């Protein structure tokens, strides 16, 4: 049996955290853990925390597109949990809201009823599916934060909070936004369009568009993506 110091300096715990230990080495870790539970647990926690810290420090922000497709995928993923089988994102959210303020009628609006954004859309048309808490961003927030309000075969509706957005071009998807807070300029073929609260942005197909959000501000909007 190794002593504790030799065991730790052997680097086996680093390999263990990375998942590269053999069954035999796993057994060694278990044996040492039973002999020195506090010391081994402490070492493992230190390694895992350091790893997490470095990974968070060197994080790479996913593109808005990637986040969107991930979040849309999540909302379609099965839960397979009897207790929450029936819940979809919108119902769950409004259920929580009802718990808070007793607005029982909010629980009856499923994602499928979210209206399509159109030039006459008003922010009030959508407040059954999101609340003020969805618009809170942490101090010093940078990047893009998305929350799916509903996902159906016809469209995906999200809340987007962003400090910057990469330019892109859509060939197979109509993107529409209704500005809730902040402002942004959308540049399409050298023309600049400015948008404020309550404005609808309708991104045309096949045209490159850049979005400029004033430095130090967060633009928040309802975003809908509708397959063309």
């Amino acid at each position, binding site marked *: 049996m190794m002593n504790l*110091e030799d065991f730790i300096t052997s*680097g086996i715990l*680093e390999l263990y955290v990375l998942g590269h230990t053999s069954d035999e080495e796993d057994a060694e870790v278990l044996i040492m853990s039973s002999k020195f539970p506090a010391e081994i647990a402490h070492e493992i*926690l230190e390694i*895992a925390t*350091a790893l997490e810290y470095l990974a*968070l420090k060197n994080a*790479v922000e996913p593109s808005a597109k990637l986040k969107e497709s991930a979040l849309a995928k999540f*909302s379609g993923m099965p839960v397979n949990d009897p207790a929450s089988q029936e819940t979809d994102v919108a119902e769950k959210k409004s259920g929580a809201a009802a718990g808070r303020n007793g607005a029982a009628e909010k629980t009856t609006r499923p994602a499928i009823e979210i209206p399509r954004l159109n030039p006459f859309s008003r922010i009030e048309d959508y407040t059954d599916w999101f609340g003020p808490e969805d618009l809170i961003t942490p101090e010093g927030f940078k990047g893009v934060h998305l929350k*799916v309000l509903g996902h159906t075969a016809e469209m995906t509706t999200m809340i987007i909070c962003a400090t910057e957005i990469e330019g892109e071009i859509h060939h197979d998807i109509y993107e529409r936004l209704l500005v809730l807070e902040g402002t942004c300029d959308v540049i399409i073929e050298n023309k600049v369009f400015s948008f404020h609260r309550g404005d609808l942005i309708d991104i045309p197909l096949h045209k490159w568009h850049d979005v400029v959000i004033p430095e130090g501000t967060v633009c928040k909007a309802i975003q809908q993506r509708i397959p063309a």
Partner: protein
Amino acid sequence: MILPSALNDVDNNLVNLFQHGDKEVYTRLYNKYAPAVLGVLSRMVGDKVVAEECTNDAFCTIWAQRKDYDPAKERLFTWMIKIAKHCAACLPPEKRNQMADEIREEIDLVYAMDIRRYLQDMQKEQGDSFAAGLDVTIREAIHLIYFESYSFAGAAEKMNIPVDSLRGKMIQTIKQIKGSLLA
């Protein structure tokens, strides 16, 4: 830049809800950890687009396997990173950038530092006495990997040793160089 904090004990509740299938909590975990996972995978595969696909695959797997996670055994992020690494390992070789190296990234991660820069600074400081006490094999491996940009796989092949044993040996050596935490 404000650094997001590591998941702490207060967040155990989140883990619990995640395991019970709470998608809203999962979205929060995604927003918090996807950038960290993407960073690791980008450095491992050397291509941001491939790493992005891989990150989303990983988060689908993480959801599907959420009940297998054992909070008593390891931290959530440790478990997530293992799944992400597995997704990266399944990539066909032509999708990776040959300059990227999974093992180098892993070793940076467990020691929470840029080992290449650390060793190069040390070498500048110590000159000829750098790594003098180490055995010849590992000295050559350090030279190839951290001073000549060989990948772990490339160095292992050149030196004719299995890559797994080179990884183990390197982790141990760096640990000794950095000094044991008990010392």
